[in-house]
C-alpha cells in the first residue's frame, strides 16, 4: 500500500476535504496528473474537471471542480477550487448555465486571443458534462 499524505480541497465557501489520502488525480491545465506522497513541489492551475481522491482506507471520492489551482509540496497537496461539489451533488441546471455563459463569452470575444480562451473553456465544460452525466 502506498504511503498516505495530506490532501485539502478548499472552495471559497468552505473546506470540503481535509484528509490523509493515498493518491489524488487533478485535472491540471496542461493535462491530468496523479499526485502521490513525496511529489515534487508543483504549482499548477486547473481546468474544469473531476478530481478523484483515493482515501488511505481505499475508498474513492470524486469531486467536480470549476477552475482554480493546486499547490503541491512533498508534505501534502492543497487544491484551491473556484467552486467544488461532490459528483453525486452536481446540479445539472447549474452546469447548463455555466455552459450557456461560456458560449456567450465565446460569442462576445473581441479579439482572437480571448476568443480562443473562451472556446477552450467551453470545450472543457462540455467534456466535463459528458464525463459526469452519463445518463
Amino acid at each position, binding site marked *: 500500500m502506498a504511503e498516505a499524505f495530506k490532501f*485539502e480541497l478548499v472552495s471559497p*465557501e468552505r473546506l470540503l476535504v481535509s484528509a490523509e489520502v493515498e493518491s489524488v488525480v487533478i485535472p491540471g*491545465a496542461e493535462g491530468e496528473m496523479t499526485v502521490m506522497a513525496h511529489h515534487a513541489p508543483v504549482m499548477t492551475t486547473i481546468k474544469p474537471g473531476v478530481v478523484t481522491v483515493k482515501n488511505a482506507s481505499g475508498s474513492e471520492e470524486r469531486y467536480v471542480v470549476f477552475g482554480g489551482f493546486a499547490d503541491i509540496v512533498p508534505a501534502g497537496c492543497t487544491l484551491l477550487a473556484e467552486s467544488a461539489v461532490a459528483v453525486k451533488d452536481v446540479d445539472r441546471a447549474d452546469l447548463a448555465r455555466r455552459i450557456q455563459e461560456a458560449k456567450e463569452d465565446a460569442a462576445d470575444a473581441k479579439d482572437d486571443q480571448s476568443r480562443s480562451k473562451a472556446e477552450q473553456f467551453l470545450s472543457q465544460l462540455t467534456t466535463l458534462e459528458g464525463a459526469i452525466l452519463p445518463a
Partner: protein
Amino acid sequence: MPSLKDLRNRIASVKATQKITKAMQMVAAAKLRRAQEAAEAARPYSERMGSVLANITQAVGGGGDAPALMTGTGKDDVHLLVVCTAERGLCGGFNSQIARHARDHIRRLLADGKQVKIICVGKKGFDILRRDYASMIIERVDLREVKTLGFVNADAIARKVIHLFNEGAFDVCTLFYSQFRSVISQIPTAQQIIPAATAASAQPETADGASAVYEYEPEPGEILSDLIPRNIAVQIFRALLENAAGEMGAKMSAMDNATRNAGEMINKLSITYNRQRQAQITKELIEIISGAEAL
C-alpha cells in the same frame, strides 16, 4: 395630562414595539451565528491563497512579467472606492460608520487633487454617500435579493472592478468594509486591493524550504495573471462576509438596546397610569363621602 385611556394605548403600543425589537434581536442572533460560520468556513481559502500568492510573487520576483493588476499603472490619479455596507438599516451606527470612514478618505483624496469614483455595494451606503457625492458614484451593486452570500456575488463585483481597470478607468482601488471583532465592536476598514499589497500581509512559507524549487505549470507569470483576479474576488468575498457578520452583530446590540429602552418606558408609563388611576379613585371617594356628609 393625558387621560387614562391615552396612557393605556401608549403602554399597549410600546409593548408591541418591544415585542418586535425582541424578535428582531433573536433573528439577528441566529443570523449572526450563521454569518460567523460562513466567515470561518471561508478563512482557509483566503489564508492559503495568501501564502500561495506570496510564494509565487517571490518566484516571479516582481519582474517585468508581473501583471498590471499587481504592479498598478504607475500613477495614482484616479481612485476607485468600493464601499460595502448593509442592505438594511436598524443596526445602530454600522452603516454610518463605514460611510464616514469612506467620506473621510474621499475628502483627503479630493484635497490632494485626485479624482474619485465610487462603487456602492449595499443600499444603505449608497443612500448616505448619494447626498454628498452623487456624481462620483458610477455603479451600485444590489444584494437585496441575495439570501446567502455566495462566492458568485463577490466574483461578479470583482469582474466589474477588473473590467474597469483594464479599460483604464482608475489607478488605485480601495475596499471599504467593516471588520468583525465582536458583537459590540465592528471596525470600519479600508483595504487597498489594486495594486495588490500582498507582500506585506502574507509571508511565504519558507519553513519547508520548498518555495525555491517549485515547478510551475504553466509559467509563473501565467499562473499569476490567473491568480490575481481570483485573489481580488476572494478579498471582496471576505469583506462581504465580515460585513454580514458585523451587520448582524450591530443589529443584535441595537435591538437589545431598543428592547431595554422600551422596557424602561413601559415601567415609567405604568407608574404614571397607576398614580392617575389611584388619584381618580380617591377623588371619587371624596366626592361620595362629602356628598353623604352634606345630607
